[in-house]
């Protein structure tokens, strides 16, 4: 996926949609007024964007809680008909909500994995939720290079946070070791922990990865 498309789908607290929707029509003073007054000075790690510079409107999926559809009503169209109802947390509707915890953070969050298409999107979203968190070194595909042991060891020795997840088998794995779609289907829970704590996971993750390739 080209880098440019990430901007479309970035998560924001502010208004979705660009000004260009209204600019073409009667440019509405009121709307601009809002954007000037809302100067949240948010202290997010990945805060390059500001509200005024979007070129294309971001995909609708990225505004939290909008449209106001309850989680069990989402993804009705993409619901599988295999009758395979695994994870209860997904309810009997659709969506892939998993709990996300970060060591040291006061709140659990929930994310709907089906809202994202790549690891980078998920990483950006998590980054905004937990502002001191960074995903670390991922290649453009978002898949961590598990074959490169030294790269991995660097990350795990740092005090940076790494995301881990509990898969269907109940094993804790480092996020990024399998293709995205496979990850969405097997991830039951996310936990963001310090690299040094995640060390114990690496060997298993690498083995699973090796056995799959």
């Amino acid at each position: 996926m080209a880098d440019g498309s990430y901007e479309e789908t970035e998560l924001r607290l502010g208004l979705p949609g660009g000004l260009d929707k209204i600019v073409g029509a009667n440019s509405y003073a009121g709307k601009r007024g809002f954007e000037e007054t809302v100067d949240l000075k948010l202290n997010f790690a990945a805060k390059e964007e500001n509200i005024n510079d979007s070129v294309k409107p971001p995909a609708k999926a990225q505004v939290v809680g909008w449209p106001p559809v309850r989680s069990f009503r989402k993804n009705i169209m993409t619901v599988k008909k295999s009758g395979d109802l695994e994870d209860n947390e997904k309810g009997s509707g659709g969506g892939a909500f998993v709990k996300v915890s970060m060591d040291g953070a006061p709140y659990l969050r929930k994310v709907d994995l089906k809202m994202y298409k790549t690891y980078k999107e998920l990483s950006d979203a998590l980054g905004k939720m937990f502002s001191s968190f960074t995903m670390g070194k991922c290649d453009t595909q978002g898949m961590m290079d598990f074959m490169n042991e030294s790269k991995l060891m660097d990350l795990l020795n740092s005090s940076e946070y790494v995301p881990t997840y509990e898969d269907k088998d109940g094993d804790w794995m480092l996020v990024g070791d399998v293709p995205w779609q496979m990850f969405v289907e097997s991830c039951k829970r996310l936990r963001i922990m310090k690299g040094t704590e995640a060390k114990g996971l690496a060997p298993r993750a690498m083995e699973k990865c090796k056995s799959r390739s």
Partner: protein
Amino acid sequence: MAYSFPEEVLEHVFSFLSSDRDRNAVSLVCKSWYEIERWCRRRIFIGNCYAVSPDIVIRRFPEVRALEMKGKPHFADFNLVPEGWGGYVHPWIRAMSAAYPLLEEIKLKRMVVTDESLELIARSFKNFKVLVLSSCEGFTTDGLASIAANCRNLRELDLRESEVEDLSGHWLSHFPDNCTSLVSLNMSCLGSEVSFSALERLVARCPNLRTLRLNRAVPLEKLPNLLHRAPQLVELGTGAYSAEIRSDIFSNLTEAFSVCKQLKGLSGFWDAIPAFLPAMYSVCSGITSLNLSYATIQSPDLVKLVSQCRNLQRLWVLDYIEDTGLEALAASCKDLQELRVFPSDPFGAEPNVALTEQGLVSVSEGCPKLQSVLYFCRQMSNAALVTIARNRPEMIRFRLCIIEPQAPDYLTLEPLDTGFGAIVENCKELRRLSMSGLLTDKVFEYIGNHAKKLEMLSIAFAGDSDLGLHHVLSGCESLRKLEIRDCPFGDKALLANAAKLETMRSLWMSSCSVSFGACKLLGQKMPRLNVEVIDERGPPDSRPESCPVEKLYVYRTVAGRRADMPGFVWKMDGDKALSADGSGNKPREVVERLGSSYAINFCTWLSYSLQSVPNTDARIITCMGQRNLFC
């Protein structure tokens, strides 16, 4: 005069009063009526679990048999309230297990219920009859097993839309063989398969079963088994509504439906395929409530089905019904009172169905009893809204969601102020309104002027300035719940109308422009409100006082500050006001600095002597000034 009737007579008279309002009025007449009434009040409704404490309730009403309670703010349904916010029911269950051994009913909405709570319920209340958990979470199927196993007289077990950790379907088998009392069972939110034979036997031995809502895992070809054993059913929720297309399955299903002469409500229909819809035709003429909101069937089949339901009063459906389907609905279902149209593809960039404002206009024209609407669509016009308003002046609930935030009138590109203005002006009985689309302060002026019976208002991405919020707070006399997200509303209107907040149940504001300083001020001056700031960026005092808070939840309470708030680690000294620079400015200085920037209305506050902020628990994130009234 009170002495001319013995207490028993008064009690008997009071027993005919079911509405809380009437009972509250009665208890204000005189002391003896207060006493008599409080001893015979059996049903309690608590709209906000933090507005009052278990002890206060128990002290006043010692003989309660039924409790209904709500926890989280409504926007929790859309993931705007972080996990761990609160709404725990356990303290209530614990207190009631000692105080109300005869408790029969518990109905909860948006609360956190644990297996421990369920087990305590199962153990403590020998005559327990009704458990309704609506949009609750925190429990597993193990907790359900306790209820099933121990509540001998259980009549209702309704888990509507709760998030249950589904460990297995085995819980259902815990209903003992001698349990024959079930009247209503709603397990539609569960994922796991239950033992079908256990379900069959349970249904067969409960002759009073009226409502049965199955979960998706119950296969269609087995549905006839259940229907034959419960032909008296009034409300049925099917499981998955698809199976191999075989004539025997079809004919069994048709025959089974034809036996259920009392059916009035249908729901379920996951994975519905059109081939099996005609099996239900025999019951359609009696159906008054139809929930097809999980059925991805397309318009022609939908229309065929819905047109048969001539007595339909309530329809929930996906937007596959399209404008043409709604036109047909308007032509066939003249008794329709409530319509909800949900989006099949809410996040798609382009419309995937031909559903526009026209569908809603048709229904408003054709259905004279229409009073309750929830409608998701992608375009709207002022003209359409004006038409709808004029067609249906008796509208009570109107919730419109135009999927694109701030979408203008698609014909004129103007804001939708006029349209919504017409709604509030014509629909004088309107109690609930949710708005969307491009809206300026003007619409709020209309609302403040006209919406005198409005009780609940939901606003998103609307308005230009504080004036908008001021119109609402100063004009809407009946307002109880106000929820706002992503609007440019700030401190002025909020502080100018602080007293109004005590007349309401709650106010929610997220992603608006209310500053931390204003929150503190509000909290300090309104001791009977809990002013809670939710901010995941860290302690509010690590940012300037003028910095807007992420989320604000304000509610009236007689219980003081709640003890179960999740928190940040935040340092607070006991004898000085929380100040942004941590310098421990004297409270008066802080307020005077803030006060000068506010409208003249607040000048009176400057003369109040401020108390220093109490020493709060480091984990608390509520705004300062909330003193515990019951220490």
